[in-house]
């Protein structure tokens, strides 16, 4: 069965600092990987996704993530965060034969001035 682990429930960081939000997954078959962001009182918005090809995926708002098959990881990174990046970030996985997303528990990114 698939599962997603986001080890950090909260990540505090100062503005303009780099950040990495960690995500590990487990699955016995090929997977697709996603990062979603949830701003306060809003729905989930897709940041980026990995389906195949280049393991470095670039998304919106300057975020990127790298798929590492040997470590079963898909960590999200941004070189310089902004106050407006404060939100909840969810990693998700989907197996190739289903359209069901399995989400992690989320990481709350808090950016301080």
């Amino acid at each position, binding site marked *: 069965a698939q599962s997603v682990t986001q080890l950090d429930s909260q990540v505090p960081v100062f503005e303009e600092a780099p950040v990495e939000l960690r995500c590990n997954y487990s699955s016995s078959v090929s997977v*697709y990987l*996603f990062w*979603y962001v949830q701003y306060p*009182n*809003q*729905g*989930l*918005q*897709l940041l980026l*996704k990995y*389906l195949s090809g280049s393991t470095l995926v670039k998304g919106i708002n300057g975020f990127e993530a790298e798929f590492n098959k040997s470590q079963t990881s898909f960590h999200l990174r941004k070189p310089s965060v902004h106050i407006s990046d404060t939100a909840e970030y*969810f990693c*998700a996985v*989907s197996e*190739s034969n*289903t*359209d*069901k*997303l*399995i*989400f*992690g*528990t*989320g990481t709350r990114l808090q950016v301080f001035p």
Partner: protein
Amino acid sequence: EPEVTQTPSHQVTQMGQEVILRCVPISNHLYFYWYRQILGQKVEFLVSFYNNEISEKSEIFDDQFSVERPDGSNFTLKIRSTKLEDSAMYFCASSAWTGAAGELFFGEGSRLTVL
């Protein structure tokens, strides 16, 4: 920009009552979903719907739950007899294509509180 809209944004109900949560997916989308998030827990898949039938459902989606697309624009989730543990944020999503290649667009959620 087209968006998924959900109503109500918040509903409070008594245990045992029926609840209907409504969603208007993006107009040219064909695949529809409900997810829920119990406070402090992960977002969980409930059901996917295509061509007027359920294509996949989770073990959470028992006989108390049903979905319907009554008029070609709305997509509803009905809970027949609510329980305390149904209290959660319910998210509707839609997609133009099936599978991971199709990006899911989520609504802002409907918060259900069961007393």
